[in-house]
């Protein structure tokens, strides 16, 4: 059982939780994720570790309420407990002195970039952060990013913050102006695809973090398989980060639709009942 210590809503439909999990915090690195199951009947879902504190023994998770599990998670309060959390899983982001790095975050995916930003900064890199969202309210953790970024570029689809337009435009300008060593993009699949397509002709190394459906998260089922350069790889153990220029985005996009009907059904049932089996403090 894992106790929720803090919970905040940080953007519409986006919640953040600080959870007591000392044994996971101990080894958590930027880029890692956990697999979590709310209760006895719950599904196992992967969530990226957005932050961790070894000293306090906590991990921070951020989630967008898009399905039954995340909606249910959003109803939990500090003091409630989550039944199962396993991790840290997945390869950590390679942290070295690359030179100039550009981190591109879209929507909630941005939060995932936060520990990567901190680690890359500590390793002596110069960093441009490009955050994109549909609208101002959906920008996540902008202030936290400013603390570490050498340069911050904000784009919104509607121009309510930063410049109007997509992250790719800002990225293109950056790549053309500066010698960029590596681009790391985390966010919606379409954004990561656009970023990878953009950087390819420039030959700039591009890392993307993939989010396929997972079941157990330890390489034993193959649910999370993705096609990388024509080879089948498992995102949970070989990834979740891969070379964006090698990813078959079309296949992944299709695989992400596999359970659309069931997901909608489960969500509908849940939202009409709004009841969840909660394990509380005592």
């Amino acid at each position: 059982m894992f106790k929720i210590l803090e919970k905040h809503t940080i953007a519409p439909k986006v919640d953040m939780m600080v959870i007591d999990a000392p044994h996971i915090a101990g080894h958590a690195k930027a880029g890692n994720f956990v697999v979590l199951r709310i209760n006895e009947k719950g599904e196992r879902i992967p969530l990226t570790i957005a932050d961790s504190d070894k000293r306090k023994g906590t991990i921070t998770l951020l989630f967008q309420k898009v399905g039954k599990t995340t909606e249910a998670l959003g109803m939990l309060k500090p003091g409630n407990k989550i039944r199962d959390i396993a991790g840290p899983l997945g390869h950590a982001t390679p942290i070295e002195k690359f030179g100039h790095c550009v981190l591109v975050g879209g929507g909630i995916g941005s939060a995932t970039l936060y520990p990567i930003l901190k680690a890359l900064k500590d390793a002596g890199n110069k960093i441009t952060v490009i955050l994109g969202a549909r609208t101002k309210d959906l920008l996540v953790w902008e202030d936290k990013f400013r603390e570490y970024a050498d340069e911050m570029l904000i784009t919104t689809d509607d121009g309510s913050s930063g410049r109007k337009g997509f992250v790719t435009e800002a990225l293109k300008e950056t790549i053309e102006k500066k010698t960029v060593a590596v681009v790391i993009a985390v966010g919606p699949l379409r954004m990561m695809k656009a970023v990878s397509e953009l950087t390819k002709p420039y030959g700039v190394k591009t890392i993307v973090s993939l989010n396929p459906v997972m079941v157990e998260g330890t390489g034993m089922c193959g649910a999370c398989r993705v096609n990388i350069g024509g080879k089948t790889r498992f995102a949970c153990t070989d990834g979740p980060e891969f070379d964006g220029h090698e990813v078959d985005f079309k296949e992944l996009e299709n695989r992400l639709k596999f359970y659309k009907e069931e997901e909608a059904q489960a969500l509908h049932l849940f939202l009409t009942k709004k009841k969840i089996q909660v394990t509380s403090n005592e």
Partner: protein
Amino acid sequence: MRFRNPEKRKKDFKEVSLGLTEKQALKEALSCLQCKKPRCIDGCPVEIDIPKFISFVKEKDYLGGLRKIREYNNLPSVCGRVCPQETQCQGNCIKGKKGRPVAIGALERFVADYEMVLGETETPEVQSANGHKVAVIGSGPAGLTVAADLAKLGYDITVFEALHEAGGVLLYGIPEFRLPKKIVQREIEYVKRLGVKMIVNWVIGRTKTIDELIEEGFETIFIGVGAGAPRYLGIPGENLNNVYFASEFLTRVNLMKAHRFPLYDTPVKKAGRVAVVGGGNVAMDSARTALRLGAEEVSIIYRRTETEMPSRHEEVENAKEEGITFHFLSNPKEITGDDRGWVQSIRCERMRLSEPDESGRRRPESTGEEFVIEVDQVIMAIGQRSNPILVRSISGLNLWGDGYIVADRDGKTNLERIFAGGDITTGAATVISAMGAGKRAARSIDNFIMGRGEPLSQPPEPVQSQSKH
């Protein structure tokens, strides 16, 4: 043995086999010749004294029979159900030469179930705590056996399991209709009653490393992480929607209870026409699970003939009775999809068996002829690989093949303090061989910690032989 009516049983997940009645059990027991040189024992990977246990059954001392089995086998209710008896004890039984062998597996199950009906499990004596700590990684049959045997000797045992529940393949692989989960839970409760600490959700290699466990005072580590990772053919179309790897399909249903979606949150796709590729237990289990999820037509595609199928014989018979069809000598070449990226059909080539090679094996070779089966779902059940995470995290550990650990008969690896057994050392094998490996490893760990020098190369009675698989 009694089985439920195929038309009824294929609609639910309740156990298919009903076991023996007392009368049937007595009849089977009486049919045993009590051979002077019992060949059945040679066929048993853990060399249970089979005629002895059967003689207890004859006397109606069922618990005595069970006690005899337990001297060799920690999981009789499981093994009685899932062992491939036809290639082990029963395959060797002298009575099988002319006619039918003694139903040894069914008798094993009978005595184990007899105790279960009584409700009480005998808790064996546990020696007083000796203060030595051992960590066991993985809670499948290998890990559970090491844990139980060492706990009985007074060791302080912690089992670490990556998933949210203990049991390994017994839990997430073998379906309810063949091995009810309450039986697995009972076995795990038994191990816990011996004082074993069971910690779930810990992925060793990630949550904690082996080195850290050693620093924390575990004197030896037993690795029993299994071989559950799926193999795949690498043919076009394997990543289309509605192509499952059997491990995922079975895990969704067995571990996550997807057949009860939306009561349980995890879904599984139900399909009308299902093709399962493979000829082992995993293939049979997948096919019969698909049927129970509501499939109208389920077929099995296997590249050799029925004789070579590695699956338990009884399960092939059960599958046939339930209406599953077989395409033997068929090898998938491609899975094709519709324009939305969902499975539409599977194209196979017809094979024939070659003349026996030097090793006597007849290999499937292509005839060049092809055929196509229209399907809505394909399940790949062509074998397993080692579970990667832990093995990859230990530097200097000797491996063979696809990442299996090199260990000797006593479970010793090339690293001091690290022992291993079960599927992670042999490749996908059987419950009984994993359990046997666990027994031998427990003895050698005990010898190692107690400073009795090198583990004996000839391990003491009663466990002597390596699995014949």
